């Protein structure tokens, strides 16, 4: 604790009084509920006002993971979440890195390109989704015209589940690549230019410079991006809501939790406000994020030690 200068006695309580609203809001609205999710996952809570809440032990988890057709669907959604995350993470990471290196060169117009690539990030899922629904308009829209050139065709979001799912991956990457790029750029800009000059004098090729100088020195931004991409993509589902609705064969865990807990569905899948069950499902997703995040962190730390030591 630092020495406090704004008076003693009663006025020593002034900072406590002023910080109270912020602290209370946080504890009541975020921290408390966050911790209470574990409690609710062991109950049969519903979204109906005044309905009693009973303790049901591990029933929700048992039902979610091991009971009949529903748990088959749940596990399929879990698998889809992993596939979505794998594709989004790797492609977004790779493209973000490539673009960051390109716009970090001394070229004219790089500011324009940076701004353009980053822009979708701030538009939000509704606008991102609607823009792409139009771009992928199946009756002679722009993407259809492009595919026509190659003799291809797609029904886009109206196509078979796996096809629709793949297009959501495309939109997800388009929407968020800008963040990855910006973080890589910040990492690239911490590398002093003298190092590049020295490498150039030594006659190193561009690839050698990237491989042996740039790549190791941008380790912190590599770590940040990889973790952010993995965690973000495991939890992302808003674009599914906007682009596909709750459609069989396309759901990811985040969407499933929402649908089960709040009964907002469209299409053939029905659900009720089973909030205890939904809480259990979100604990499952939480563990998935935790385990994958921590495993990644572990390997990144080992890699960092190897590079630095």
């Amino acid at each position, binding site marked *: 604790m*630092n020495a406090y*200068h704004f008076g003693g006695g009663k006025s020593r309580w002034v900072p406590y009084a*002023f*910080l109270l609203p912020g602290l209370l*809001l946080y504890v009541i*609205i975020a921290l408390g509920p966050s911790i209470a999710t574990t409690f609710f996952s062991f109950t049969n809570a519903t979204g109906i006002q005044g309905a009693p809440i009973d303790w049901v032990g591990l029933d929700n988890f048992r039902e979610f993971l091991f009971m009949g057709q529903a748990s088959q669907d749940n596990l399929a959604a879990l698998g889809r979440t992993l596939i979505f995350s794998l594709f989004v993470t790797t492609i977004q990471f790779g493209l973000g890195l490539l673009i960051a290196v390109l716009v970090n060169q001394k070229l004219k117009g790089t500011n324009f390109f940076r701004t353009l690539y980053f822009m979708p990030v701030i538009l939000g899922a509704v606008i991102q989704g609607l*823009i792409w629904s*139009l771009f992928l308009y199946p009756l002679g829209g722009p993407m259809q015209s492009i595919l026509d050139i190659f003799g291809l065709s797609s029904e886009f979001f109206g196509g078979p589940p796996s096809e629709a799912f793949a297009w959501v991956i495309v939109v997800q990457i388009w929407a968020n690549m800008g963040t990855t790029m910006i973080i890589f750029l910040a990492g690239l800009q911490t590398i002093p230019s003298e190092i590049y000059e020295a490498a150039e004098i030594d006659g190193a090729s561009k690839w050698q410079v990237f491989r042996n100088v740039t790549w190791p020195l941008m380790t912190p*931004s590599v770590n940040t991006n990889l973790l952010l991409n993995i965690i973000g993509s495991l939890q992302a589902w808003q674009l599914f809501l906007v682009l596909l609705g709750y459609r069989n064969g396309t759901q990811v865990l985040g969407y499933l939790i929402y649908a089960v*807990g709040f009964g907002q569905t469209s299409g053939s899948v029905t659900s009720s406000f089973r909030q205890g069950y939904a809480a259990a499902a979100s604990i499952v997703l939480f563990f998935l994020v935790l385990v994958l995040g921590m495993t990644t962190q572990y390997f990144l730390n080992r890699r960092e030690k190897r590079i630095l030591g």
Partner: protein
Amino acid sequence: MINKNIQRRPIKWGKVLSYAVLIIFAIIYAGPLLMLVNTSLKTLPDFMKSATSIVTSFNFDNFVEAWNRANFPRYLTNTIIYTVSATLVYIVTAIFLAFPVSRGYIKGAKFILLMFVVALFLPPALIPQFQLMLRLGLYNNPIGYILLFTINPIGFTILVNYIKTIPIELDEAAAMDGCGYFRYVTQILFPLIRPAVATTAVLHAIGIWNELILPTIYLTNQDYYPITRGMIVFQGVYGSNWPTLAAAVLIMTAPMLLIFLLMQRYIISGLTQGAVKG
């Protein structure tokens, strides 16, 4: 050196290739937006005839129709009220929390900071939050909806870190001159931490503006819908009338684009905070 302009410069293939890639991606990024603008200026029959034809005569009726028919003024007003009031409450409460925590002027400062950092590693609050709001009678209630957006752990840590860069001697000097706590925070500290406040406020406001899930969960009365939820309703009604829908999307996009272009520096600094320090 004199010969520099006479000698033919060799073509720099690296540069050509870089531009080629950048332009391809520029098309992927600008294309969907240009299609949106193009479509919004068309009439429906024109669009049906050819979706991709480029407009020759501008038709602004779509914007008028979207504005009048979509209940837009209402949704937009709601969004602005939610965004401005929640961001204001958040910023004011966060500064008064971040300052003593950052300075260590209070007992348990480290613990409070820890409480915000662990938030990123806890399960989502969605279900218990809903149960709480339901029991407090704040379901389908604009005040309750605003309350949901009065917290932001990342913004809080940005503020705490920034306040650390303001020398503590300044606190001492001001106190010595008889400046009280409240006046110090509002009139001396606040102007000095404006960049961090701008970053935090912009990121927070963008999040509220774009939020779709929480209004879907908490607001059932159409009169309370923010623009995001309103757009989804509008899409349901006008789903096949792309020119009007595109105009509506543009109306919703314009304020965000404006904020983005004006505040880009702050947004980017917020997103890269701590990302490269490791």
